[in-house]
Each structure stands twice: as C-alpha cells, then as structure tokens.
C-alpha cells in the first residue's frame, strides 16, 4: 500500500522547489532586509508600486532572460538594495565571474577561430572533394556520393557546424551565463546591426562579427560600435558595400614621355554604386526612417563609402580600403561639403557626423526604451534617454543606467507588458526549470517555426520587437507545443529535471502554487489556476488499492509555460 503522506510528496520535489514552497508565503510579506540608501537609484525603486517580489522578477525579466530556480526569490529577499547591486553588477559584466559558462564553451572549436581559420578548417564539401581528386561535377550530380562524403568528413567538420556552434553558444550563454544583461544586449545589438549567415560566405564571418564587432562595444560609445560594424567584412558583404564602386573611374594621371603628367577625365564604370548599406546606416542603424534625410543624402553617403570593401573574401577576409574604386569627387552629405580628392577618412568623418546627430540619439533612445520598457514607451522617457545619449557623446552604459533607474522602467504599467520574443520564451523556460542545452539541441529549429531563425533574419531590419510581430495564431500553436515539449523533456539536446508527483487531493493547491510561483513569480490568474488544478485533481487516480497512477509534473509545468502569463515579461 502506497498511501501518500505529505512529507513523502515533498520528498519527491527537487530541493529548490521545496525551499520555494517554504519561502513562497513569506516572500509577499517580508520587508527589505537592508537599510535603504537614500541616493537617486534607491528613491526611484522605493517609489515604485511594485512589491519586492515583482521588482526582483521585473529586473530578471528585463536585464536577464528570467531567473533560474531560486534567483528571483533570493533577490527579492535582499530588497531594493540588492536590486541596485544586481543592476550595477550587470552593468559591469567583466567583473562578474562566469567560469562555468566559459568552461562549457571551451569545447566549442569554432568560437575562438578567426575567419581565416574557419575557412581553412571548415572547407565546403566541394572543396574537400576537389582535394581528394573527385571533381565537383561528379559530386553535384550524385547526391548519394555527396551524402557519403559528408558522412566521411563528419558533422563536426562541415561548414554548417560553425553556425550550429554559434547558435548553441547564444543559447547556452543566455541560459547559463551570470552576465545576463550582456546576453540581452548581445541579442539587441546584433539584431540592430543585423546580418544573415545564409548570404554568400557569411557563415564564415558571423561568429567573428558577433565576437569582435558587436560584443566588445556594447557598453562603450555608440560611435565605436557603428565604426566597428562599418569595418566588418560581415556587414560589408551582407549589405553589398563590398561591391560598391564609384560610378566613375578616376584614372591615374598619365605620364608623358617628357615626364610631365596629364590628368584624365573620369570614365564611367560598369559595376557602379550600390546604395544598400548607405541607406540602411541612415534608416536603421542611426538617424531612423523619415528623420529628414533625402535620397540624395543616401547616394552621397554611398559615394563617400565607396572603396570600403573586403580583402581576400574567401580565405582571410578583412576590411580593406580600395582607393582604386573610391569616388574621389566632391560630395554634399546632410548639408556638409566633403571636398574632392579625399579617401577613407571622409567615411570616418561621415560616420562620426551621423553618430553625433540628435536624430540618432532619439532613434536609439526610442529603440532601447521599446526593448526595455514597453512597446509604446512614454515620450518623456525617450526624451531623457536621448538627452543622456547626447550629453555623454553616446555613452551606452550611461543611457542604460538612465533607463534602469527611471520611474517608467519601474512603473506598474511596464511590468509584464512586453511579449517575450521566441528566443526569450525558450531561454526563460529552460532557465526557470534550471535546465541546460547542448550543442545538438533542436531549439534553433523549433525557434524557426515560431518565427525567429537565430542569425538567419533575412531583412536588414532584424526582428522587430513588438507584440504584433510575435503573436499570431500560427506562432501560438508552436509556442504551446514548445512549452509542452520542453517540460516533457522531449526536445533533443534540452535537459530539464522534473519529478513525478503523487499529490493527495489536499495538496493540489499547494503544488500548483509552488510550481506557478517558481515559474511565474506571481500568483497565477484564477483562470489558469482552475484549469491546472482541474488537471491535477483529475489525474492521480487510484488504480487499485496499492497502486496510484503517478502524475507527471511535466504536464503541469508545460501548462504553466504555455499559459498567457508566461508569454509576457
């Protein structure tokens, strides 16, 4: 006879869930443990109408991808003081030790390699075949032979592996890293300066792009980030600037037999100007659409950036200024004259000029506020962030700090007002269950079905972080299925630990409360609770006198992860 007693139920719970059950009741009434310091940051937090648990949940929702088991509870128990400390530490990621994440990623061969090494070590199947003396024609016509060769080379040595590892590292860092804000920002800034690994040879460039172009500049000056992207092979290839050439060929002066030189008229060139990159710099990366620049400005910036290209694109890609295709004529860009005969430095000047424009400050302020506060951020907040950006000459950390210590950030209206991106949804789900993923996880594939192909967003706009982008009936089906699959541990390469429960009817309510508190950090809505309780009280059926059909907690957790509450952050 296995009649279930209360202690036995709790013995089945993982320790953190048990601890939570105990702390759950306390957390809503406990006062902050530390004395409140009276600086500006504490004042803002003190004025917030959110309770301590909500504050902790909110900061984990926005500066992180949700909490891992126990983290929100722990932060809540430290009160405002602990929250300020958390924000400050997240703003200085290099001071947060993250050895375990580093250790996990140490085994990823591609992450530290240069593009040159990636090209050399991950050649395409065709190139491998050629070295083996199989001509590529034979290979292309014979699918079976190709498959066999791919097998022989091994999954971990194919070029696709570079992208597999890149995606896996993004997931692993977001799920496990203690430098959570760093990961939130890596996602934000990569998306802002989007490139897509599908294009041309970008799969060899994207790892380096994120590692060397995006990540090192996320807490510094915006101009450095902008400049880094403008010098990156990935961006120059993705938005075609690598191919852009002066429409006119400025021929070198002719040297006559008598030693005199005669200058020559420029002649038209067949492959001319490509405006794609110039347009997107203005429209997406800096000033923002409809901010008053003209088509002429786009063309002039494209002319200024002619010659910004990539050397050795298929072996050792790196930035290269090709003077020969640079348009040396005079330009007038946004009202400023760029005199004839200049070279690369006029591009630097133009980038500096747009980075310092108040329109850029405003555009970035609005985007950051939209990402961290709400889909329609209050105008006053955008004004202040924009002002801060200008005062500090585009110091991003100063802007983040302004944002995280703003009344708008801590307003009740901001709490759980954002819809999680598909990436945010899966990462927060795995985090909340204390789970892990490995390099072969199927999450990237599943994310594609909800509309977020990691490193594979085709348009340069990147993903647009607004509710309507993510919430539609097709994506909802995938979101719900994903919740069920993650909680049931049926996604390959994703590991979560959920116990089997045997709650007696009298314990159903406590179990639901405990699970919901751990995953949502909020008492769940009455509607969601009643459906789940019904599920629970329905299931533990006495099959015979000495046998109870066990209830899988996975189903309950799956329902919470699929609930409307969990879609928000």
């Amino acid at each position, binding site marked *: 006879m296995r009649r279930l007693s209360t202690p036995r139920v709790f013995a089945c719970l993982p320790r953190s869930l048990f601890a939570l059950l105990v702390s759950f009741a306390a957390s809503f009434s406990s006062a902050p443990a530390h004395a409140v310091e009276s600086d500006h940051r504490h004042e803002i937090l003190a004025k917030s109408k959110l309770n301590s648990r909500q504050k902790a949940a909110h900061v984990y929702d926005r500066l992180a991808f949700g909490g891992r088991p126990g983290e929100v509870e722990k932060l809540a128990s430290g009160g405002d003081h602990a929250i300020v400390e958390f924000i400050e530490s997240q703003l200085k990621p290099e001071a947060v030790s993250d050895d375990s994440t580093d250790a996990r990623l140490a085994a990823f061969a591609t992450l530290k390699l240069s593009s040159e090494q990636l090209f050399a070590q991950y050649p395409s199947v065709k190139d491998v075949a050629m070295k083996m003396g199989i001509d*590529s*024609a034979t*290979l*292309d*016509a014979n699918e079976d032979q190709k498959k066999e060769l791919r097998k022989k080379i091994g999954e971990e040595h194919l070029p696709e592996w570079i992208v597999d590892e890149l995606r896996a590292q993004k997931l692993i860092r977001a799920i496990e890293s203690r430098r959570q804000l760093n990961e939130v920002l890596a996602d934000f800034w990569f998306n802002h300066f989007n490139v*897509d690994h*599908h*294009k*041309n040879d970008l799969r060899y460039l994207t790892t380096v792009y994120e590692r060397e172009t995006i990540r090192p500049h996320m807490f510094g000056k915006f101009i450095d980030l902008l400049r880094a992207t403008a010098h990156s092979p990935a961006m120059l290839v993705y*938005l*075609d600037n690598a191919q852009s050439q002066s429409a006119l060929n400025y021929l070198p002066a002719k040297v006559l037999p008598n030693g005199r030189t005669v200058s020559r008229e420029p002649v038209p060139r067949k492959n001319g100007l490509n405006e*794609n990159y110039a*347009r*997107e710099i203005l*429209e*997406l990366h800096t000033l923002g*659409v409809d901010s008053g620049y003209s088509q002429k400005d786009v063309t002039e910036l494209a002319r200024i950036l002619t010659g910004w290209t990539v050397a050795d694109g298929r072996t050792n890609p790196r930035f290269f200024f090709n003077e020969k295709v640079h348009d040396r004529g005079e330009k007038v860009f946004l009202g400023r004259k760029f005199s004839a005969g200049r070279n690369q430095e006029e591009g630097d000047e133009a980038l500096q000029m747009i980075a310092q424009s108040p329109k850029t400050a405003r555009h970035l302020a609005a985007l950051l506020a939209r990402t961290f506060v709400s889909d329609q951020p209050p105008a006053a907040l955008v004004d202040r962030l924009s002002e801060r950006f200008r005062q500090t000459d585009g110091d991003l950390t100063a802007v983040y700090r302004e944002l995280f210590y703003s009344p708008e950030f801590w307003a009740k209206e901001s709490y759980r007002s954002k*819809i999680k991106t598909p990436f945010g949804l899966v990462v927060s789900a795995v985090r909340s269950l204390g789970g892990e993923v490995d390099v072969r996880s199927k999450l990237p594939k599943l994310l*594609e*079905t909800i*509309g977020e*192909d990691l490193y594979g967003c*085709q*348009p*340069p*706009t990147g993903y*647009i972080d607004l*509710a*309507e982008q993510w*919430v*539609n*009936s*097709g994506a*909802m*089906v995938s979101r*719900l*299925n994903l919740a*069920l*699959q993650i909680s049931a541990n049926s996604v390959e390469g994703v590991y979560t630990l959920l116990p089997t429960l045997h709650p007696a009817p009298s314990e159903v309510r406590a179990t639901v409360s405990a699970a919901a508190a751990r995953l949502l950090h909020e008492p769940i*809505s*009455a*509607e*969601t609770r*009643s*459906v*789940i309780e*019904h*599920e629970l009280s329905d299931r533990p059926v006495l099959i015979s006198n000495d046998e109870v059909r066990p209830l899988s907690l996975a189903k309950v957790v*799956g*329902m919470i992860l*699929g*609930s*409307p*509450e969990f*879609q*928000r952050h």
Partner: protein
Amino acid sequence: MSPQLLRREFLKSMTSALGLIMLDSVTGARIALASASSVYGATVASASNSSHANNGILVYIFARGALDGLSVLVPSGDAFDLNSRPNIGLKTTGPSPLLSIDSHFGLHPAMEALMPLWRDDLLAFVPQSGSPDSTRSHFDAQDFMESGAPGKKNIADGFLARALEAAPAPNDATTNSVRALALQSTLPRSLRGKFAAVSMNSIQDFKLKAEDRSFEQMYQGAADRLFRGVGHEAFETIATVQRASSDAKAAQASGLYPKSPIAQHLRDIAALIKARIGVQVAVTDMAGFDTHVRQGSDKGQLADRLRELSQAIAAFRNDLGNHFGDVTVVVSTEFGRTVRENGTGGTDHGHGSVILVTGGRVRGGIRGTWKDLKPGNLFEDRDVPVVTDYRLVMAEILSSTLKLEDSRKMKAIFPEFNFQPADFVGVLRS
C-alpha cells in the same frame, strides 16, 4: 489610320527589327503581331473586370535555386539556343524529343504530365520573365521577389501579405476562415506581414501535442485580452485546418500523389481548398534548381525536378476536380540561368526565366513577348533578358483572384512599380 493602328504599325516595324515576337496564342500557334491582343490590352481590360462569382485561390510555388527557363519552354526555333548548349540542349528529335506545343517552342519531355492541362488550354507560360533587378545572388533575388520590391532592401513584409491586407474579405469569409497559409516549416517572406497567415509542415503536424483541451480552456478564460484573442484564433485555426486532415489522408491512400515533397505539399493544399475553409493564398516551395553542374537534358537532375513538379501539379488538378476552376497555380523562380552551358555541363546564374501559370481561369498559351536569343538581345551579353516583369504577371493574377481591380491598391503591393492593366499579358481568361 486610327492612333491605335498607327501604334501597332510602328511597333510592328520596331519589333521585327529587334527580333521580337509578341506572343498570344490560345492554340499554341505563334500569332502575328497585329492580333497580339495581350499586348494591347483588349482581352486584358475585360480580364481586369473579371466577374467571377467565386473568389479565386492563388497557389504560389517558389522554385528555389534559379530555374533554367530555357529548359522548360525551349525555343527550338532559335538557332542560337541550340548552338550554345551542345550537351544539355533539348532537341526536337531523338528518343525523347521535346513535347510539341508550338511552332517555335517545345516543352521539356519530363513535363509530359502537364500536357492534359495544355490541351485543355489551362496552361500558360510567360517566357523571358522575372525581376528587373540584376542581382545574381539567390539570397537577394529571392528576397526582392518575395518582398515585391526589387532593389529595395528595407521592405520588411511580403507582397502576398500586403495583397491580402488590401483585398476585400470574401463574402463568405468567417472568423474561422484561414485565408492565407504556407506549406513549409516557416512562414515565407512573401506572406510575412500584418495579415495573419499560418505555416505548417503538413496538416498532420499542425495541432497541439496535448491530448486534452486544457490549453483551450485556459486561453478561453484568460484575463489577458491579447492572448484570449490570439489563443481563440489559434484554436479555431487548428480546428479548421484539421477539418482537412481526413481528406489529406484519403488522397494519400489513394495513391494519386507521388512521394515527392512538392506533391505532399500540394496534396495538403488541395485538402485545405476542398475543405472550404476560406483559403485565398497558399504558398509552398521546391528546391533543387541550382544546376551549375551536370544539369542533364532529357534525363538528369533538372529533368527529375521538372518531372516531380509536373506530376505533382497534375495530381493536384485531378484531386481538386471542380475546385480547380477557382484555382490559379503560379510557379516562379528568383532568376534564370545563362544561355550558354558552362564547362561542367550546367548553367550559371542568369537573369530572365519563365513563369508557369495553370488553373481553371487560365488562358492557355504562351504569353508576353519573346526576344530572339541572338547577340544584342541578351542581357549583359550572356543571359535571357527579362522582358516581362514578374510583378506584371502577379498583378494581373492578384487583381482578379483577390479582387484587387483598383490599380491604386496595387501601388502598395508593388511599390514604385508603374503599370496599366492594359499592359497585362493576359494569362487569365476574362
């Protein structure tokens, strides 16, 4: 002489000088310029006033990888073409000759399954068509084609999504209607946008992996209004789509469809159309057309792909029966391939290709304008030119199928594309 006749005479002298053929044939015969009504708009003006009682259904198949239009509709009358393709050129004689459809053109022998549609005058080709943008990057060309804005990179949504947004809802549309869907794992670029479209790998896949209705109850009662709404829609959509599930299974069991992925996708689309759930646009795609090496001729890689595609379309038509009357199937690709074969028995990235259109409302024949493949007529001295902009073909089909006759609406669908309904090539009957 009337101004219009004058214009015709002028064009006639111009076009013969340039080696142009205006194509207009119901029977498949090449018809002289004077009767080229598709160019002058006589038939088309009425097509744009289409009075079909039922709403039409567009099935848009994207052939990814750049389909070699010259292997689909082979201009056997152009000596240049034969000479430039010694190993892969398709011939009018031999064991598997071109299918004879016209004095100037033959159809690839692997596409024989489409011949009943041709004989019924329900199969049209628009040769030398495509996107005017000159890029030879698959990535950019597919992106431009599906965004509906060649050369413009900053358009985040797709042309079919914008068309659906602009289109009036059909009279019989209900809140349960699934008006736009894709049979592929992710929503294609062409359907991305504000209009609610769903994508699925198969009907079989598009349901919740839970045995009970707990999620449904949870979302029905949700206090969160956004999610109550979208949850409601999602469950309705699942239920609606699943109405087609037994039909799809039956069609599969009947052996009507081959096993290829494109056939499976068309089978599911047919089931969804037959279930009358309000489908107006269905999108799917097919890969394997990037034939740089050993393209083959009457047999080989490309022949295999074309056979798969043709057999799938033929099965789709037979499966749909009377429903085919409302359907227009379009097969289109990002760009064509070089006129000359390359050193490895294949073709490289080119420019113009062919658009295939079939369906109950289609006016069978070869439409548009053909430029003889002679030096001087080639794009950048090497490729099939784009004589007919793909947007013109899609605009004609969308006008009628989605009842978007108001050409002002078309401006939002294809930004910066200027055309008159009189320019339509006439792939649809009036």
